[in-house]
């Protein structure tokens, strides 16, 4: 259930310890990318149903940024990874 998130650093924690900071899929464009790319990055979002990736900040725990992959229909959680690890592995950029 999404109300319990297994932080890779802290273990099983209630969702109240986290703040959800939005879609983890969009990739920040290069500084010189056109206005359209920046507009899309800042404002344009899908409203997907099903399996999604989100940034969760473990505000009341280890204070690490996490990437939570979960289903927003069934609340099933598939994976919780440290955002730094995701960025290093580059696997968070599959849009």
């Amino acid at each position: 259930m999404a109300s319990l998130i297994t932080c890779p650093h802290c273990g099983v924690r209630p969702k109240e310890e986290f703040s959800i900071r939005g879609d983890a899929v969009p990739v920040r464009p290069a500084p010189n990318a056109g206005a359209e790319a920046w507009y899309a990055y800042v404002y344009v979002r899908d409203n997907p149903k099903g399996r999604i990736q989100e940034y969760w900040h473990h505000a009341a725990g280890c204070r690490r940024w996490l990437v939570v992959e979960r289903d927003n229909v069934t609340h099933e959680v598939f994976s919780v990874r440290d955002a730094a690890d995701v960025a290093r592995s580059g696997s968070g950029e599959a849009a």
Partner: protein
Amino acid sequence: MCEVTLPMTLSFAHRHVLEDHIVGFETRPNPHHLAVVRRPTILCVLAHAGFEGGVKAALHALEGVCVRICGPAEWLVVSHSVGPEALLRLVREIEGVSAFDHSDGRVLMRIAGPNVRSILAKCLAVDLHRDSFAPGASANILIAHVAGNLARIGEDAFEIIVPRSYAGTVFEEVKEMGREFALTAGFSED
């Protein structure tokens, strides 16, 4: 006609109905007791990238301190015998470390008693069974809606560290949750 005469020799000590609410119900510690440590030394310590393992080992090698886990590469170092300045000097000798004195910014409380887990279960949502949070374990946890650090210092004893501005709230909340077991509270001896 009948006249009632009251025995005027009997003297009652006047006690206001809110006396206990103001002064406290019990002054001597019960089996369930919340002790507030007056002036502990609490340092916040971070390890630079690549130095995590070395810093951790060096902190654990220090004498007269307890090391509390906050998250990856971050700890609270607590001492009841070494002062903040002296401990800060010791910790800053470790390679790849950033350390800051939080002694005045944090409050340390110790709660103990046979049903301590039942009390804590009412103000935090983490499994405290020894299989998942054994004696010696510590972690940053939401305690009474406040981001704090919890450490298990014994089978039935825990230490709570919270930011000082939230300490009053947490203290009142934990006391309330302990009423079921007549939890008493006071400053500790150390």
